[in-house]
């Protein structure tokens, strides 16, 4: 019942997004879309996914889109080309999918093939084999550890890609000039500064909790990384990019991103050295279960460090580019005056 309500809300939002021309509103609605789908994931028992979707879909990606539209303009042009061709393609694809659903196992039925073939082993044996209650974490970090490694590399690739596209090396004096025109909206926002200062330690602490608690409840390295980086993002938004850069400079953060990936990989290499297959944690310690614990703990750290570093890199790149644009615009205005 709950899922139907949530799904219909999602449909309402999707249709509204199609119709809207104001990109700002579209981005806001996308944020709501993320929140709603995350609630849907909770209703579907996928707590880990909900965790991630909330942090990513509703948090980081909305924020990035916002920064982007402040640089690119807010209104969509009214012209909409080839709506019929699009409709045609969409109808065919959708029709095919609906045709495909007809033979699917019904929603929620426990005897569907996916519940009887591979998954039961995870649910039944993971406690003996790995020894942590969160099955999602044990599948993620041990049975399918290589997928997760791939995931870390994907986010690493994206971070380097964004850097390659947006990074502009700056000299010191230039940097200070830009920092001085850094829009100081929050100079007079005393309340929010204080509240933020109170919240940031709490957020960092919470990130650590999520990092360590991933074995027992929803959470893990990825979520912790995102939460950690969101604290830094919050700080950057309120106290300016150059202040934040003083705390975390570009070289250091790149190093951390690379370090996380290497760290993850080195766990695999360590199991090779100890005579097991790649990512075979059983050989990391005398007791297989203890080895699994150790392996999962280590790779979660690798994930957390990389994700936090890359999210910060991505945000810094966008914010830095934006400052640069404003700087050059200001110069232009000054010249025209």
């Amino acid at each position, binding site marked *: 019942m709950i899922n*139907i309500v949530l*799904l219909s809300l999602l*449909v309402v939002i*999707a249709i509204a*997004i199609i119709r809207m021309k104001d990109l700002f509103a579209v*981005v806001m609605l*996308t944020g709501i879309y*993320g929140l709603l789908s995350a609630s*849907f*994931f909770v209703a*579907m*028992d*996928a707590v*880990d*996914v909900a965790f*991630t979707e909330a942090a990513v*879909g509703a948090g980081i*990606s909305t924020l*990035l*889109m916002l920064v*982007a539209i402040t*640089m*690119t303009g807010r209104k*969509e*042009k009214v*012209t*909409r*080309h080839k709506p019929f061709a699009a*409709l045609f393609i*969409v*109808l065919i694809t*959708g029709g095919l*999918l609906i045709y495909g*659903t*007809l033979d699917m196992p019904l*929603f*929620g*039925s*426990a005897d569907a093939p996916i*519940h009887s073939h591979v998954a039961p082993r*995870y*649910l039944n044996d993971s406690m003996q084999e790995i020894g942590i*209650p*969160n*099955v*999602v974490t044990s*599948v993620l970090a041990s049975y399918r550890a290589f*997928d*997760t490694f791939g*995931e870390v590399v*994907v*986010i690493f690739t994206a971070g380097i890609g*964004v850097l390659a*596209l947006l990074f502009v090396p700056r000299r010191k004096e230039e940097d200070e000039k830009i920092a001085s025109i850094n829009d100081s909206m929050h100079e007079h926002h005393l309340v929010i500064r204080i509240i933020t200062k109170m919240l940031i330690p709490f957020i960092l602490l919470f990130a650590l909790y999520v990092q360590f608690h991933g074995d027992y*409840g929803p959470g893990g390295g*990825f979520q912790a990384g995102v939460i950690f980086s969101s604290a830094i993002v919050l700080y950057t938004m309120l106290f300016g990019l150059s202040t934040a850069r003083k705390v975390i400079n570009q070289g250091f953060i790149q190093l951390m991103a690379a370090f996380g990936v290497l760290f993850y990989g080195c766990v695999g290499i360590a199991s090779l050295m100890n005579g097991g297959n790649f990512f075979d944690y059983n050989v990391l310690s005398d007791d297989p279960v203890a080895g699994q614990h150790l392996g999962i703990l280590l790779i979660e750290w690798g994930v957390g460090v990389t994700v936090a570093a890359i999210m910060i890199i*991505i945000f810094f*790149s*966008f914010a830095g*580019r934006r400052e640069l644009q404003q700087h050059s615009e200001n110069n232009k205005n000054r010249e025209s005056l």
Partner: protein
Amino acid sequence: MLMGLFNNWVVIVLMMSGLYIVIAHGNLIKKLVGLTIFQTSVFIFYISMAKVNGGSAPILSENISLYSNPLPHVLILTAIVVGIATTALGLSLVVRLKESYGTIEEEEIQRQDNQQNQALNKERDK
């Protein structure tokens, strides 16, 4: 039967509205929003197939015997990361496009490219 598949159908409608935005809209940010919706709907599709009626979240606990399938959750965790990676890269491309073309409307970018090509061709004809 109807209720059992209804979920999937709604998800398909969501997917298709995402795909429609990608294809039909010329604004690049809107295209990326469309992609996000498209991908998110696929996530919803995966997650809803993992659900078992009466099951609970796959975090083992003593007094619960039926759990939902954890494997799709793991896959979607990875896919979400892929999604945000794509969005971030796409947005940085859009920012660069705005800087060099001065617009983020597909048609205008295409027009500028065509104009440039025509100018080149004219030069060649001379």
